[in-house]
């Protein structure tokens, strides 16, 4: 069953069409990668799904409910979480506070100004547990803005997964990392998305073919193919768009 489905989604900026009619079904539990050359509109597509941009036309349903043009916070509350390509954290707060903020809503605190955080053992334990998962336990009190790049990326992931969302969208999670850092991050992604649906934009083809169950190829605002990694590799249209970029192995 499709947990997320896009029907003929379009997005224009002024007269420029960035997304030109994307239809896509994401099956519950799958690991789906979106690839494509620079400027294809991958990040824009993420922004449309997560509510940062309004769609120009078309509709998006998450768990059978229309979410196009809903504000991001409503979509997030439904169980759709995302990370950002450029690190996007609460930079003046500690690592622990970053994660705790990501947990509030899912743990039913809402806009409470009557719960004292020091007393919320369950919440604080949950935050520590997430820190453990992303390997930042010893940096809990560290100001997040001063973390090393790879650690900030880990925190970025942590904020996305903290709430226990069913659908997780990661925008280039290993961009700018060294090979070994990227390997660790892939392991981390595998671990934390277990039993969940994952949509990922990534440029590193090794990682894409390693992680994804299915791959969609986005070129100039259109999806030219959605298929299993093997078939995508063999697809002549994809090879044309990706001349020389697909590993032959």
């Amino acid at each position, binding site marked *: 069953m499709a947990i997320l489905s896009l029907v003929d989604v379009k997005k224009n900026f002024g007269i420029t069409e960035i997304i030109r009619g994307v239809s896509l079904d994401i099956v519950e539990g799958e690991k789906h990668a979106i690839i494509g050359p620079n400027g294809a509109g991958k990040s824009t597509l993420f922004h449309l799904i*997560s*509510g*940062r941009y309004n769609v120009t036309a078309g509709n998006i349903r998450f768990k059978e409910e229309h979410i196009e043009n809903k*504000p*991001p*916070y409503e979509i*997030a*509350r439904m169980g759709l*979480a*995302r990370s*950002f390509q450029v690190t*996007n*954290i*609460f*930079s*003046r*707060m500690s690592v622990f*506070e970053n994660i*705790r*903020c*990501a947990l*509030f*809503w*899912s743990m039913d*605190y*809402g*806009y*409470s*100004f*009557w*719960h*004292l*955080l*020091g*007393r919320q053992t369950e919440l604080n334990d949950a935050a520590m547990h997430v820190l453990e998962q992303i390997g930042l336990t010893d940096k809990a009190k560290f100001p997040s803005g001063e973390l090393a790049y790879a650690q900030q990326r880990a925190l970025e992931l942590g*904020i996305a997964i*903290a*709430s226990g969302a069913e659908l997780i969208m990661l925008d280039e999670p290993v961009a700018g990392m060294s090979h070994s850092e990227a390997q660790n991050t892939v392991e981390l992604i595998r671990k934390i998305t277990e039993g969940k649906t994952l949509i990922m934009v990534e440029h590193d083809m090794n990682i894409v073919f390693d992680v994804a169950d299915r791959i969609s190829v986005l070129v100039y605002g259109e999806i030219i193919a959605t298929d299993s990694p093997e078939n995508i590799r063999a697809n002549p249209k994809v090879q044309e768009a990706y001349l020389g970029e697909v590993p032959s192995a």
Partner: protein
Amino acid sequence: MALLKNSSIWIAFLVTLLGLPLVFDSILAISIMNQIAIAIVFALSYNMLLGQGGMLSFGHAVYFGLGGFLSVHALILIEFETMVFSILWIPLIGGVFGLLAGVFIGSFSTHKAGTVFAMISLGIGELIAASSLIFSSFFGGEAGISGDRTFGPTFFGFDFAQNIEIYYVAAVWAFIATVFMYLFTQTPAGRMANAVRDNPERAEFVGYSSRKVRFISFCASGLFAGIAGGLFALNYEFITEENLNAATSGRVLLMAYIGGLGYFIGPIIGAVVLTLMNSLLSNYSELWMLYLGIMFLLTVMFLPRGFAGFFMMHQLAWIRGNMKMLIKPYIITGIPAVLFAVCVIALIEMSHTEDEVFHYLALELNPASPITWIVLLGIAGGAFYAVKRSLLQLNDAWETANAIPKEEEA
């Protein structure tokens, strides 16, 4: 519980508040302490907006002033026995009205932070200040309105005719307000205010409407500003348009900024320092506002996190036990710096005096003689040069004191 962990600080705070009149019991001291208590609440409420929530307001006096006006009206109602209750509750009336004003104005102004919010706050501030002069039956025009705090039921025999009695009322209210404002920072709403300040966009992706988070901080801030206004009404028994106009809004911004935004204690420091300067310096020099302006600009330029930020900068050196490495360089830079400031102030004051002999500190200076000027300028120049030279040394000492020890790095 976070509060309990720091309970000794809170007890110390309360004891200080209540004990001060035993040490300083002159009429002037009591009056200054009253002002400090009011300023602390007001500045902390401002910090809820700017420091905690990232909303730069140029119209915060609106909530202070409206709370104050309602409080004076309440005093008048008590005086004419339309209502009968102890004046102890007056600040609450100010607070409730500040909250209502916050709910109303916040409902449309918290949509955006940044420049848009700043401009709306400025516009509303000017709008209400100007309107208050039009609606003179409520605001009393230029003269303002006044009441009398001695009419309500007495409280264990106290009728609050004395300033010292009001000081205790103000101190208790200031303590309660401070505790609640601190507790607010320890709640999900308070923490999300920080998150929205840092990154409103990401806050939306963890399930929070930035606007609603700002709105809650805004209302809470209005509540406490109103309480401060109520305390003002109790202390002075009158209030005028001046208490809700741009000048008052500017003053609270100065307090919070000089004290240090983002640190809970910052605005308290700012409130104390500025109120003391206001009350004490104004006795010695009519130019104190000029000094205040200079001090403010220097703070913005060189201590962007205020006095509190300056102290907190030393946390790392303190933890590492390296503070003693800094003492000597601080003294070496500090002495010429103070000397420079003393000379500059002397020059400024001298150019403004009309007396034959100008008394300055323990000195008697002759403003008419060019030698005085040359000597002062010379000392100032030399001191400035010494500060510049020794700053390098201070910088080095700072680097060493904060350097990461070798073993820790590995």
